[in-house]
Each structure stands twice: as structure tokens, then as C-alpha cells.
């Protein structure tokens, strides 16, 4: 993202007295009050910000219409590094050279800040309503085609978004700098917030092209060093992953009331139509809808044999529960096995009547764990455990548990890991840290409000 959007000469030159009073969020309230006591008619204000950014948006959407996405020229090393340093050095110099001008005061002023936030928010609202997806290459019809070509379905890579975000960055830079010279302790909360957000945005956008997210799919007992990106390009990593074991644990099974519709079973919504078993449920008496369910036997890993389930440690074993239901208007209790099944065996239901059954849905996953050996060039091999929420850092990458072969459920012999390199992360976190400081400061400040 080119944060250095030129302070273009397209700023409206018309600046008749009072023209800003009827623009934007504020309506005509300005007519009554002048909160800051100086002659505003000579300053740039809301109107200039509004028209300038409207212009940016119109040009942006026109460019999207004509050329497609915003080119990601500035977000790759080393260009982004030069731009980052350029912004850190260039903006202060630019500010110092021009701090007394009308233009600089306008850019760093609150009216421009409010309009900039509003424009950013409006584009974000469009993005928040319309589904965002990568271009599928198909030509759409009618209104869909217009929305697509304006870039609304890929807002973050549209020209308008780039321009508005760029201007937001310029606004933030100037509003930060206006309280930097001279530095004063009483501005610390202000500076933490503004500089924090500026650094975060700058590093996150400029660094976005250096973020590398690759997937590595590996079978148990195998070693893999090739990874693919989202577009299917294959990369050879500077390390290899040997998958020793993938394991998945699940929560204890649930019993649900299910309804037969068009030859398929659907669980019936509503409270009381679902009951969770615990880890050793045998002997449990439960209430399910109007029925009383007694658990006679529970086998965690079971295979179906002629007239029931038996324990088996083999791949493809499923949880099976023997239950008896009574009550709820049943003439006599019914006893049967229920099981969610697996890739090797079909599910079992307890049939209450022609319409309803008791079934076991696929259990919710509790954990996904890959035991791996990591082998890096010129690095000691290490044994590591990679879990969801517990990535492992090695050879400059962070390695995440991403997926598995869901056809096999908990018996998946395969694990998909995501290998991520994000060199700008420390800068982004530095920005977070500053913003967190300003958040604490605001809470403290509220005491004086």
C-alpha cells in the first residue's frame, strides 16, 4: 500500500466562507457555535476533506472498473522497507517544513480526522455486508457484474480502499506529528494511541506482501519439505517435517432426537432434544425429550459384529452406546445400539417410530495434535508437538496445526500443517503495545472526565 498518497492538487480550491458548515456528519450545527475562537472561514475543514476523499473514492472505483485490483507493488521486501523508513523520516521532515501552512494544519486537524475515519468506516461497512472472496474469473451478470468490477467483493485490494487507507495514514501521521513538536508529557496518551495505530497500519499494510502462508501436507511416517500456497504454487522449504503421529481426541458422544426426512436423518432442534454423555456413561439415566434413556454399555472404540458392538483397537473403530429408552408414551422399553459410525462402518440408530430415531452425531473435536520431528538446514533436529493454538517456532517459521484428512476422522493418517513467516510481526506488535498503553491511559483518564 502506498501510504505516501501525494497531497494531490485535487483538493477543492473553492473555499467560500461557511461552505464547510453544511457538509458531512455535522449538518448545519456550525452555524450556531464556533467552539474554537478564531476565524474558521480561512481554514480548510470538513468540506475540503469530504470532497477530497469523495474524489479519491470516485477515482479509485473508476480505476478498479478499468484496471481491476490495486497492484501490490509496494508490499514486498525491499521496496516496503525503503517505504517504511521513508515514511518514518519523510513525514516528520515534510511536517516540519510545512507546519505553519493551512494545508498541514488541515490534514492534522480533527475535521479531517473525523471525515477520514468516516470514509474508512463506510468502505468497511460495504465490506462487512457483501461477502468477500477472491475473483473467481467468471463474468457475472447485471448488478453482480457491476459490484464485482467496482471491486466491492475484494474491497481490501480495490483502488478506493488503498487510497482511503493511504489518506487515513497521512492524516494519522500529521496528527501524530503535530503533538510531537514540542514534546510534552501531557500528550503521552494521545501520542501512544495515534503513533501506535499509525505504526500498526504502516507495518501491517507495507508488510502484507512479505507474509508467507504455506501448507504442508504430510502422512504419518513420512518426511515432507515441499509446501504449497493458496494458488497451488509449490515451494521447497529450508526445513523438513517428519510426521511421527497425528492424533485427534473428541468429546464424549451426544444423543439426539433425529427425524427421518426424504430418506435422511436430521437432528431435531430445540432444548431437551440433545443430551451429552460423560466419559464413562454406563449406568447414566438421562432425560431426552420425553423419554428416559438408560446407558447400558459404552465402548469408546468398537466394531459392529453380528448382533452388537465389540471392543476393537483397530483403525476405523467408532464409539458405540447401548441404550434403553422408556416413557414418552412408549408401550414398552426399547433397547438398541447407537453409534456415529466411521469411514469403515455405517452409523446405527435406535428407531422410536417411523418418523423419529435416537442417533449419535459425529463427536466434536477436542484436540488435534501432530507429533513431528523438524529438520532444518544447519539446525539441530527437534521433536515438537504442534497443536491448535500452540504453534511451534523453528527455522524462522511458525508452524501451525491446520487440518487433517477428515474422511478418516480421528483415524486420519495425515496432518496438514501451516508454515507461516511474518517478518513484520514485531513492528505490528510494537504498534499494538503502544495502543494498549493508550487504552489503559483512556480508562485512567475517564476518572477526570
Amino acid at each position, binding site marked *: 500500500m502506498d501510504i505516501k498518497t501525494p497531497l494531490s492538487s485535487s483538493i477543492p480550491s473553492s473555499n467560500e466562507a461557511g461552505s464547510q458548515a453544511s457538509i458531512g456528519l455535522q449538518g448545519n450545527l456550525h452555524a450556531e457555535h464556533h*467552539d474554537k475562537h478564531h476565524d474558521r472561514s480561512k481554514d480548510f475543514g470538513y468540506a475540503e476533506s469530504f470532497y477530497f476523499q469523495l474524489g479519491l473514492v470516485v477515482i479509485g472505483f473508476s480505476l478498479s472498473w478499468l484496471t481491476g485490483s490495486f497492484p501490490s507493488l509496494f508490499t514486498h521486501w525491499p521496496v516496503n522497507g525503503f517505504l517504511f523508513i521513508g515514511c518514518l523520516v519523510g513525514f516528520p521532515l515534510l511536517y516540519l517544513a510545512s507546519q505553519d501552512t493551512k494545508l498541514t494544519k488541515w490534514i492534522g486537524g480533527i475535521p479531517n480526522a473525523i471525515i477520514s*475515519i468516516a470514509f474508512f468506516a463506510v468502505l468497511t461497512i460495504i465490506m*462487512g455486508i457483501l461477502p468477500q472472496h477472491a475473483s473467481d474469473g467468471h463474468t457475472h451478470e447485471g448488478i453482480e457484474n457491476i459490484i464485482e468490477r467496482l471491486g466491492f467483493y475484494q474491497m481490501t485490494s480495490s483502488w478506493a480502499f488503498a487510497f482511503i487507507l493511504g489518506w487515513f495514514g497521512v492524516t494519522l501521521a500529521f496528527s501524530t506529528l503535530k503533538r510531537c513538536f514540542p514534546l510534552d508529557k501531557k500528550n503521552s496518551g494521545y501520542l501512544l494511541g495515534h503513533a501506535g495505530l499509525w505504526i500498526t497500519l504502516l507495518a*501491517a499494510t507495507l508488510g502484507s506482501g512479505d507474509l508467507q502462508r504455506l501448507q504442508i501436507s504430510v502422512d504419518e511416517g513420512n518426511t515432507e519439505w515441499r509446501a504449497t500456497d493458496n494458488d497451488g504454487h509449490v515451494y521447497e522449504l529450508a526445513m523438513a517435517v517428519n510426521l511421527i503421529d497425528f492424533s485427534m481426541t473428541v468429546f464424549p458422544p451426544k444423543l439426539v432426537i433425529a427425524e427421518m426426512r426424504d430418506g435422511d436423518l436430521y437432528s431435531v432442534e430445540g432444548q431437551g432434544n440433545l443430551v451429552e454423555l460423560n466419559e464413562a456413561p454406563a449406568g447414566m439415566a438421562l432425560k431426552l425429550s420425553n423419554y428416559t434413556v438408560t446407558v447400558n454399555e459404552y465402548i469408546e472404540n468398537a466394531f459392529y459384529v453380528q448382533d452388537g458392538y465389540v471392543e476393537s483397537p483397530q483403525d476405523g473403530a467408532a464409539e458405540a452406546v447401548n441404550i434403553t429408552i422408556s416413557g414418552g408414551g412408549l408401550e414398552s422399553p426399547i433397547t438398541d445400539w447407537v453409534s456415529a459410525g466411521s469411514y469403515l462402518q455405517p452409523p446405527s440408530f435406535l428407531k422410536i417410530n417411523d418418523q423419529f430415531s435416537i442417533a449419535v452425531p459425529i463427536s466434536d473435536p477436542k484436540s488435534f495434535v501432530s507429533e513431528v520431528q523438524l529438520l532444518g538446514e544447519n539446525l539441530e533436529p527437534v521433536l515438537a508437538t504442534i497443536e491448535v493454538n500452540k504453534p511451534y517456532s523453528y527455522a524462522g517459521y511458525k508452524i501451525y496445526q491446520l487440518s487433517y484428512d477428515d474422511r478418516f476422522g480421528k483415524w486420519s493418517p495425515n496432518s496438514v500443517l501451516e508454515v507461516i513467516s511474518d517478518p513484520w510481526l514485531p513492528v505490528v506488535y510494537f504498534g499494538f503495545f503502544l495502543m*494498549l498503553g493508550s*487504552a489503559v491511559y483512556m480508562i485512567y483518564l475517564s476518572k477526570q472526565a
Partner: protein
Amino acid sequence: MWTYFQLTALLAAIPMIGGTLISYAPASTISIKNRDRLSLSLFALGPIVLGIFIAMLWVTLDRPPMRTLGETRVLYSFFLPLVGFSLYIQWRQRWMLVYTLGMTIIFLSINLLHPENFSKSLMPALVSPWFVPHVVVYIFSYAMLAASALVGLKGLVDNYRGKLTKKLELNLIKQADQLVFIGFGFLTAGLLFGAIWAKEAWGHYWTWDPKETWAFITWAIYLIYIHYRVQHKNHRTQAFNILVVGFIFLMICWVGVNYLPSASTSVHTYTN
């Protein structure tokens, strides 16, 4: 545990309603000191009962009760009266009790109308030290900002009825500023905690997931409020408007996102 929710809601609502009514008792029937003492102790029973329910739910579910929308609504109903209570102590304005009570009852009623199933399941991505701070900080912030919207609404309603005196207006805007400062501070913290957590769980701190997008919009609107207040200290009615609009966006972010076309890809839809 959810089966006790009806009872809990009643046990929480009745003393809060009683406390609020007593706070309006005419001074001739009871001394002001006793009235305040009685009404505040009764009102405080509400959050205490809800707090006990949350703690017990946590124990029986064997996980933080913050996964489903219904569970976050209970947490919200716990924080709202606490905010109302503290504001009453600080500003001695009884309408604050009425408004927060009304809102708490609405949220408890939604839960009564949409009972949830008892589920211990917690998807692995939620098993994180960031889960509890992220949700608690967010819901607390939502309660603060809800109170600020109520202040804004009070200002607008009184203004419409011609009852908004300069003194009342000044009092209201001070309360609103205070609530927004605290709420926005927590909102920012919640957003950042969420981002750091997302990096650990999903590999990136910001992916413009629909929930993130709406969280940003909500954040931006309160940012506008804060800037507007600095620039236009005397345009208070307009500031009240921003607070009410801000809260509408907050609600879209919290519950509305699930119903938008963009939600199909969200990791925050609270469904299995």
C-alpha cells in the same frame, strides 16, 4: 445447569425491580439514606445471583461459559446492572437503574425465549489463555457502551420533550464521556487481545473476517465520537446521536453479523 436459568433469571430480576421501585419511593415514607441503602442492596442482588450462576455454569460445563451467544448474554446481564449500580452511586440518578434494569431484563428474556442446550464442547481453537480475557473485556466494554447509548437516548428523549435543561445536558454528556472513555479503552484492549489470539490460533492477527470488519466499524464510530467531542464541546445533542448510532453498529457486530451475507466465511458465527 441451564435448567436452573429460569429460576436464576427470576431471582435476579425480582430484587433488581424491587430495588429500582424503592429508589423512587417518596421521601415522606422513608429517609433518603435508608432508601438508598435498601434500594442499592436489593439491586446488587441481581448481579450477585447472576455471578453465582455464571460460576456454577463454568464448573458444570468444565469450560468458560463464554462460547455461545446465550452465554455471552448472561455475562452481559451480569455487567449491565453493575455499571448501572456504579453510576447510581456516583451520580445519584435513578433513571440509570431503570434503564440498565430494562436492558438486563431484555437480555435475560431473550435467553428465556431461546433456551440453549447443555454442551461441554469447546472447539480446539477456543482453548487458549486469550479466550477469557478477550470475551470478558469485550462484554464489559459492550455494557459500558450500552450505558453510554442509554445516556444518549435519555438526552435525546428529554431534548425532544423540551425537558433538557443545560444542567442536565452537561451532566449527561459528562457521564457519556466517562462511559465512552472506559468502554473504548476496553474495546481497544479486547480488539488487540483478539488479534494476538488470532495470530496464535489462525496464523494471522487480522484477516477482515466479517466479525473483525464489524468490530473495526464499531471501534471507528466511537473514535468519531471522541474526536467530535474534542472539536465541538457544545454540540451535545449531535454527540448523543452518535452514541445511539454507535450502539446500533455494536449490536450488528455482536449478533447481527450472523445474519449478513458476508458471514458465510466467519470463524465467529457461534455455530457448530
